């Protein structure tokens, strides 16, 4: 992995920062929607187990509030959430790329199949700005993966409305 002192990184403005204070929470997830293909086939092809998956009519994993949703499509997901302890999205993408790189040919084959769609979805909760370095962008581009960001904004007044002891949706933080 590239460290902040490498020559190539000298001209960059944003060093790696696992404690990036403005970020409340971030993670990166490969989302594959394999159409008619069975999810176990995706696992077999990639040689990696998903961190979650959904199938039509089957209950998906429960949310923070305990509600699971029945899937209406096939979905295979590999998420860095809980696997990487960092508020720097680059670390999360690095983790994902390290899982996918050895299986790039299989990923490419999947992409060529009819009805298969995929994206790398990056959640960003809090202030500040996620930054991608050339190393992550090169890795994603080599795998022909788009990278999509979802920003989640919680204005102060909304936080104030949270009732005692409840979990704040995506934040996953416990407010006493």
């Amino acid at each position, binding site marked *: 992995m590239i460290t902040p002192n490498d020559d190539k990184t000298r001209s960059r403005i944003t060093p790696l920062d696992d404690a990036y204070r403005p970020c409340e929470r971030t993670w990166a997830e490969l989302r594959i929607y394999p159409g008619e293909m069975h999810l176990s086939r995706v696992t077999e092809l990639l040689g990696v187990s998903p961190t979650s998956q959904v199938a039509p009519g089957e209950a998906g994993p429960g949310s923070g509030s305990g509600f699971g949703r029945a899937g209406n499509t096939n979905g295979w997901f590999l998420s860095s959430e809980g696997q990487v302890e960092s508020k720097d999205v680059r670390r999360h993408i690095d983790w994902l790329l390290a899982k996918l790189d050895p299986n790039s040919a299989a990923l490419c084959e999947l992409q*060529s199949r009819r009805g*298969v769609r995929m994206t790398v979805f990056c959640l960003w909760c809090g202030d500040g*700005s996620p930054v991608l370095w*050339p190393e992550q962008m090169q890795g994603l581009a080599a795998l022909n993966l788009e990278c999509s960001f979802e920003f989640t904004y919680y204005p102060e007044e909304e936080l104030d409305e949270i009732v005692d002891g409840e979990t704040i949706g995506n934040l996953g933080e416990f407010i006493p």
Partner: protein
Amino acid sequence: MTGPKDDRTLSRLTPLDDAYRSCERTCAVLRLYCGDMHPSEVTKRLGLKPTHQIVLGEESPPNSLGLKRVGKVNGWFLSSEEFVESKDVRRHLDWLLAKLEPNSEVLRELQAGPGVRMSVECPWWSRYGTGGPTLWPEQMRVLAALNLECSLGFAYYGPQEPAESAQSDLPRDSGPS
């Protein structure tokens, strides 16, 4: 650039969309802080005119509020904002990268210079308070080849006019953060 119907794009989830509904406003800006070098030298070497520049110790032209500022750093900025009408940040990056790619060697030389720092920043103003931009491999491949980091800034100003609140955000010329 790649169109939405190319084979390689078939598996992608987010087609190009100039109307990108969740976006209020976006652009792509190369922010180049050139150390002790005068920004005019960057202009000369890249063969490109900046859309904005600041010069160390020199007073800037008055902004929309009539205020002038003295430059604390040397900065050279190239923004797509006035040139691309799209709410899809990929279109803005394509414009910027088309300007920069023919000058990749010069950009590399600049990157090796003392005190030179640079970044491509893509501010993204949300229409609804959520959503976000998507980058495709075509943009990421060129950014990586140019050894440029890419920063995606999110802003949401609620249901009121975003232009007023956003005005002070761009260009930011106080130096690398």
